[in-house]
């Protein structure tokens, strides 16, 4: 579903991704872990080309995202992304957030968009919050709106970038719960996270990144339980 080949990304003189190869199968859940600054966000952002890769290829659902002539807007409708800082549209209520792209990108009429939007909001447990504005919602609720906003486009792939890191601890669970449901339903997911418990229970595979490269990857039990690399071991000893 996602193929990343020889991906490199530099910001000026600093090379942040130094040759990443990664393949994510359909229905697979891959959790990406690693220390701050290791390039996890940059990897996700290169996958939907919010960052322009310096070298290498990214193919999503058979479409070469990095091809010069690709219709990137079209590709992005098949990829949902959820951000650490929610990035909800503050001038729209929850339903407005969820329906904006349906109306402007998929050209659905208002009624159909709202019907689909309500359904998705309900699916993430936000029935009755349709008319609440982001600043009237808790962090956990806001992040669930953001997930619904991405899901409503019916993406083939979901990208999550530390979506619980900005949340109060008691709100983390409700968001992880939604993500777990999504994984159970067979969504293909790439999840950058510091939640080792989630990675252990939900991930099909855990990828450990450090300093712009993938150091180690495999089933969660192996990577988290008995890591072979010294860098993985020292990272895990710090976070666990």
């Amino acid at each position: 579903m996602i193929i990343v080949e020889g991906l490199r990304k530099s910001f000026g003189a600093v090379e942040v991704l130094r040759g990443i190869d990664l393949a994510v199968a359909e229905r697979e859940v891959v959790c990406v872990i690693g220390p701050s600054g290791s390039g996890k966000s940059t990897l996700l952002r290169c996958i939907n080309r919010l960052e322009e890769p310096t070298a290498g290829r990214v193919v999503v659902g058979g479409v070469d995202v990095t091809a010069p002539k690709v219709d990137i807007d079209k590709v992005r409708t098949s990829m949902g992304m959820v951000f650490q800082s929610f990035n909800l549209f503050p001038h729209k209520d929850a339903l407005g957030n969820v329906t904006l792209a349906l109306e402007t990108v998929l050209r659905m009429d208002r009624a159909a968009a709202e019907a689909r939007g309500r359904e998705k909001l309900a699916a993430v447990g936000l029935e009755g919050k349709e008319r609440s504005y982001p600043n009237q919602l808790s962090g956990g609720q806001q992040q669930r709106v953001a997930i619904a906003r991405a899901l409503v486009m019916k993406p083939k792939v979901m990208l999550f970038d530390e979506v619980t890191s900005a949340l109060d601890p008691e709100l983390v669970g409700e968001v992880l719960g939604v993500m777990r449901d999504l994984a159970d339903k067979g969504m293909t997911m790439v999840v950058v996270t510091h939640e080792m418990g989630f990675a252990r229970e939900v991930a099909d595979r855990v990828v450990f990144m450090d300093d712009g490269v993938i150091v180690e990857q495999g089933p969660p039990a192996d990577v988290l339980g008995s890591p072979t690399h010294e860098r993985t071991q020292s990272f895990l000893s710090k976070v666990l």
Partner: protein
Amino acid sequence: MDGLLEEFFDLDIIADMFPGLVTEAMKNTLVFTFFSFVGGIVLGMVLALMRLSRSRALRWPAAVYIDVLRGLPALLTIVFIGFGLPIATGIRFPFPTYTPGCLALSLVYGAYMAETLRAGIEAVPPGQMEAARSLGMPHRTAMRRVIVPQAFRIVIPPLTNELLALFKDTSLLAVLGTLAGGKEILKFSRDLVNVRANTSPLVAGGLAYLVITLPMLRLVGRLEARSRPAR
């Protein structure tokens, strides 16, 4: 003391100014303000988007325009449009005073508002554009539906300030001379100062400005106070 009072507050002279002070002078000041503000904001939006464009060919003409118009005295621009242009090109404006006046003020205020609007657009967190783009919205759509509406909220206080400045600067149009019935507050009052050989009309004209500007000043203060805790 009585002499002073008579010179500045001759109630008979002031009473004679009505209803013209309201039906002509204030009306015209508001008409000039309205059209110049609308023209300015449209031009300002275009210039702001040009300045933020990825294309150099759009960016630098906008930057030059904005700097030049902000660097010139507004009065010079008004005289240039109102007198210089017709003489140089033979253009005759329909609705004299109104058209060149509003055009000149739109050109000047468009430059100021462009800077305000650009600052507003830049103040919208970058995550907003990223979220919109990640949903497949083209850049233009994201600008129109996500960024600009938020930018407008941010710039309401400074834009109200500019509206206030514009309202007062319509007095500069007094230099353009007028058709009958076309005087704004300053011109209307000043002409009466000459006719009556008394300063009271100017005082009344000043009060006419304050009737509008003082509430607006209060409004700006409130808007600024309201937008502060949010940012």
